């Protein structure tokens, strides 16, 4: 875990953003390309039309916004250091998102493709496990909060007194 000063310093770099309207992926991509880059890896998460055979109408994303943005900045900063890529841009959209629209965009620019792919994969996987964003999925006959992946063990509050041992997050709610 980074200390708050480091995160604040990272947030001044502004590699991450939260938006409430359509993500202009082409514009972000164009803005990332520079002469020293040999590869730009792009990941877009888009809203799928079904979950386990059940027809999805749309999704609604919410976040603990300030913390989520700082976490995303921290991940981008970490990726640049850890994978030796030149730069990273991450954008997550909140609110109602329709089928086929982009909910998250990650762009990694690097001299060589291997580092770009590795960094991009790590960024989306880590974002999905640690950044405080949640989605509610709306179907024709109701809505459920999507199951998340379990938190990494050092972030989980489980095993605290009085929390029992029942598995939570079941989609039956």
């Amino acid at each position: 875990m980074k200390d708050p000063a480091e995160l604040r310093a990272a947030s001044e770099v502004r590699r991450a953003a939260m938006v409430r309207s359509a993500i202009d992926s082409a514009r972000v991509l164009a803005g990332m390309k520079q002469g020293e880059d040999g590869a730009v890896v792009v990941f877009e998460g888009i809203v799928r039309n079904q979950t386990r055979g059940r027809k999805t109408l749309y999704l609604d994303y919410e976040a603990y916004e300030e913390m989520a943005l700082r976490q995303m900045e921290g991940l981008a900063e970490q990726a640049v250091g850890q994978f030796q890529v030149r730069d990273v841009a991450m954008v997550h959209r909140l609110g109602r998102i329709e089928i086929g629209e982009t909910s998250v965009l990650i762009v990694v620019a690097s001299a060589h493709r291997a580092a770009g792919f590795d960094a991009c994969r790590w960024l989306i996987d880590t974002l999905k496990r640690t950044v405080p964003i949640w989605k509610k999925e709306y179907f024709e006959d109701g809505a459920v909060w999507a199951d998340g992946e379990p938190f990494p063990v050092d972030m989980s509050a489980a095993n605290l007194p009085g929390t029992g041992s029942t598995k939570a997050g079941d989609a039956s709610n």
Partner: protein
Amino acid sequence: MRVRVLFFGVLKDVAEKTVETVELPEGATTGDLLSAVDARIPDIQKYLPSVAVAVNQEYAKRGSRLSDGDEVALFPPVSGGRR
């Protein structure tokens, strides 16, 4: 001491609120807070084992001490991006 508790995702629906102020004894930990939340909110218990706690916007370790005025956020497993 008093802490401000924020609920997110499914916890917000179960608690039927987004924020609540909870009074705790001095020296209370995140575990004590979860016990207090369990005692005052019906049906939240089954969600608590998979919850993560952030204190003042930083993930808190198990058993972290709380201070008066802390903002304590309770997170169900996160689900941003797409799977």
